[in-house]
């Protein structure tokens, strides 16, 4: 399922702790058009839970969370 998502943009926040990855993602979301698929790469365990919370609150669409060996890919579709 997740293998089929091909992001328009990738944000590599691996190595950064909370709230670094979220800040990087918000920065990117503010720059791109609606309906852009963003892949956020993070190695921060906390961000894995916190980012979907924010996405939900902000009204964007959380597509998937894929676990890799030492990081996660969070796929988001912007709605505005």
């Amino acid at each position, binding site marked *: 399922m997740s293998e089929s998502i091909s992001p328009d943009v990738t944000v590599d926040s691996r*190595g*950064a*702790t909370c*709230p670094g990855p*979220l*800040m990087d993602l*918000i*920065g990117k979301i503010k720059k791109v058009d609606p309906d852009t698929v963003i892949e956020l790469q993070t190695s921060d365990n906390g961000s894995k839970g916190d980012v979907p919370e924010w996405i939900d*609150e902000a009204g964007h669409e959380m597509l998937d969370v894929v676990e890799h060996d030492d990081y996660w890919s969070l796929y988001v579709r912007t709605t505005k």
Partner: protein
Amino acid sequence: MTGYAIVLASGELERVQAVSMIGSIAAASDTPVQVFATMNGLTAFEKETVESGDFDVAGEAGYAMLEAEGDQVPLFTEQLQQAKELGPLEVYACEMVMDLMGNDIDDYVDVFDGVLGVSGFLQKAQDKQVLFV
């Protein structure tokens, strides 16, 4: 909700970082945030303190942050600067403490929008929820 007015009165790294993290994410999410750095909270922003990394630390979390510094845990100064580009975040320095320490605004890292006294702060905080740290 019209935003948060955060009084940062402590220079302990744990508190300063927490204010920066919460304030930054709120502002980046388009919630207006105004941080008023006073007492030792303002001292944490002195160029000398930031450059030397010689922050007050309350306990284990603070030491862990100091050790992890750099890429992993962005320092509050960088975080606030990044957040200011993303949303409505304003940071003010307390005039009284600045005078007391014989400093002017150039002695502090470049994150401040201005200098305020108590009544200036209260006026700006009127419509906001106040958090005292």
